[in-house]
């Protein structure tokens, strides 16, 4: 039970901290102009709301394809500055995705080898996606608004509607599923792809970690290191809290993390905004805290 908690919470922490470290040391290859703003947040929210229905409607191979494209592009984005070469980054991405698919086919999506590789890939996805948004000028205000809106969405989609549960069951048949997960070694759940059963998984959604990480990065940029660290700590505490309730068996239904994290993001933003009166721009942040190394 605690093994699952430690692995999943550990991966969540690694994602947050990797995103943080990457933000300080590397520049992603982003478009020459264009800034992430509220219209983009609105588009993201629309996407987040509609994609589950799309995934539930499309055939599995199409869903797998979409997941593959998303994972490949974000991991490539994250790796390219690290490896200083397009081909090296591309080969590593393809290798990781290939390994993920091969292990899913060979061992099944609840095998530990598959989950290790999948969780590692998701760390890169978090790093790539969050740094693209944060380095493209996303404001902490917009990240807080996104978090607040997702509070409403996550609560309804998880507790009021069956869509999240159905989506999870569907995605758990595929490689590259967007969950940091580990077998909980307690009971089984029906294997949707067969007549048998598979170990139950303790998991936290990729999306929750992405939102938590991008909020921490934008808070760092906007209000400085203390604000960013508080955001990291609050996010980790919230995720760990939810995971401990699930892993201990005290709660057996899905917990929408954003229901709790979203309001905490808004409170944090309001506090730091009141303290500093305005957010720094990315340029002001880099002037005040120059990057130790440019990619």
């Amino acid at each position: 039970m605690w093994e699952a908690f430690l692995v999943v919470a550990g991966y969540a922490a690694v994602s947050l901290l990797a995103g943080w470290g990457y933000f300080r040391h590397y520049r992603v290859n982003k478009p020459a102009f264009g800034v992430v703003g509220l219209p983009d947040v609105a588009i993201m929210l629309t996407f987040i709301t509609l994609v589950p229905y799309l995934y539930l409607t499309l055939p599995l191979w199409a869903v797998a394809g979409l997941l593959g494209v998303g994972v490949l592009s974000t991991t490539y984005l994250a790796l390219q500055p690290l490896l200083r070469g397009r081909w090296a980054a591309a080969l590593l991405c393809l290798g990781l995705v290939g390994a993920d698919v091969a292990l899913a086919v060979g061992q099944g999506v609840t095998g530990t080898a598959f989950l290790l590789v999948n969780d590692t890939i998701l760390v890169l996805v978090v790093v790539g996606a969050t740094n693209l948004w944060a380095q493209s000028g996303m404001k902490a205000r917009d990240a807080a608004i996104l978090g607040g809106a997702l509070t409403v969405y996550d609560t309804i989609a998880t507790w009021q509607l069956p869509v999240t549960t159905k989506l999870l069951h569907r995605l758990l048949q595929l490689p590259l599923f967007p969950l940091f997960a580990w077998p909980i070694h307690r009971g089984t759940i029906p294997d949707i792809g067969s007549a048998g059963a598979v170990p139950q998984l303790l998991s936290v959604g990729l999306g929750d970690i992405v939102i938590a990480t991008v909020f921490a990065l934008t808070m760092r940029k906007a209000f400085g290191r203390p604000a960013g660290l508080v955001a990291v700590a609050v996010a980790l505490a919230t995720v760990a809290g939810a995971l401990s309730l699930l892993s201990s068996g005290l709660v057996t239904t899905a917990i929408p993390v954003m229901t709790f994290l979203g309001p905490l993001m808004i409170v944090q933003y309001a506090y730091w905004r009141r303290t500093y009166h305005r957010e720094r721009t990315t340029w002001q942040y880099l002037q005040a805290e120059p990057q130790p190394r440019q990619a």
Partner: protein
Amino acid sequence: MLETAFANLRFGASMLFGVPFHLQSLDRIVKGMQATIEELGALGDEANALLGGPALDEETRYDIQGRRFRSQALRAARETAYYPEVLDKAGIDPAKLTYKDIARVPVTAKDTLRDNPEAFVRRAAKIATRVTTTGTTGWPTSVYFSEYELHVIGAFAAFAFMTERTVDPDDIVQIAITTRATLGMLTVTRGCTAAGAAVHPAGMLSPDHTLRLLTEKHHLPGKKPKVSALASYPTYFGQLVERGLELGYGPSDFGLEKVLTGGELLSDGVRHRSEQLFGQLSFLQNYALTELTPMTGNLCPDGHLHFEPSAGIAEVLDPESHQPVAPGEPGVLVGTVLPPYRDTTILLRYNTEDMVRALSGPFTCNLRNLPATSHLLGKLRLSARHDHGWTFTRDVLEALEAVQAVPLPARYGFWAVPGGVAVEARVRSATAQTRRALEAQLASRCVPLQELRLVEDPAELHRPVPLRCDLQETASHRSVGHLPAAAPAPVGARTAEAGAGLEAARST
């Protein structure tokens, strides 16, 4: 960001396929660039490439330009009064034109456009504005533009100023060109405001007035304390230098950092001599002609004029035969603006009468992927063809303005005589030393000097080259009395009375 990305895709479609620009997409791109500069401090390195499109190999360029020229020629044949007869006489079916056939299309003379500008206006055009040239070399030429074209011109000016960092958000820009230069005012104003700078379209007032404006201290939030960028014609800038030194100004009186020039030739002499008054300045030059706007020539660090192939076709032709000249040889610049940049006044192979030298690549500068010519040599009408070849305005101007004895701007004339050229020039004092200095400079520029006439009064010049600085505008005499106090003159310097600096505007 996503909106900007979609706008960029739409923009790319126009660049690639020649479909009309989507104006809201252009505005979206400008806003995206502004937001990027505000948030991130600067645009990404690839901004220029993103807007200019990929580097084209010669074959692809010919194909794209050929198709666009055909499209423009079809419009000209079907919708203008001038071109149907011209194309018919030349035996050209515009629907079948390829790039290779462009050379068969007769060159459109400057005089033809000047004498009947409305014959070049498309019948389906939605005309918004009539723009005239300054007319320094003759009666002004009129060109008509639509609102669409003006919007595109403004947007491209904004792109250029932001990608090239012509000005920065903390700059204060003073525009000291004639206010009748509609497109010049539009492009500089739009470009500077898009880049976040503060703009003062002051016009071309008396040098005394302009100098005082340049020394004014400002207390504007986020802006430099004095005017930091000046948009000006080279001759007017020369007047400022000359007058400023007379009045005893020095570098510490000004905050000027950069000068945006165009419309005339800028000599090295003016650049060097301006350091005495303003200190170190950076000069930004480009080539723009009302008739060919928004097709412009961008000056690279190697001194080439590069032309964006999707905007237009630039050719260098022999002034008489209108045949292409060999690399290194001088010729007139002939330009055709292609769709979707122009849709009102259609000009096919328009003879600018600006002389340049043809160049062949490969180039090694930062604009190496764009076709190029040499820097401008001068107007054809003002050039002298003689037994030894050509002498251009630039040859004479560079020689004259390198000599301190020639007041700025140089007032001069030159023409062909047997064996070479005769040159006349205004100097401070027609001494033997001045004469020797000028002869040496002219010789260093390979000018085959046969006669040199020096005058101290510019009114004594026989055939002076017209200068844009003579297009000055008036300010009321009363306003001069309210100007801030002039810089104190050092002992021995001549000073001007407050009202004496005003001159009546003269336009040719």
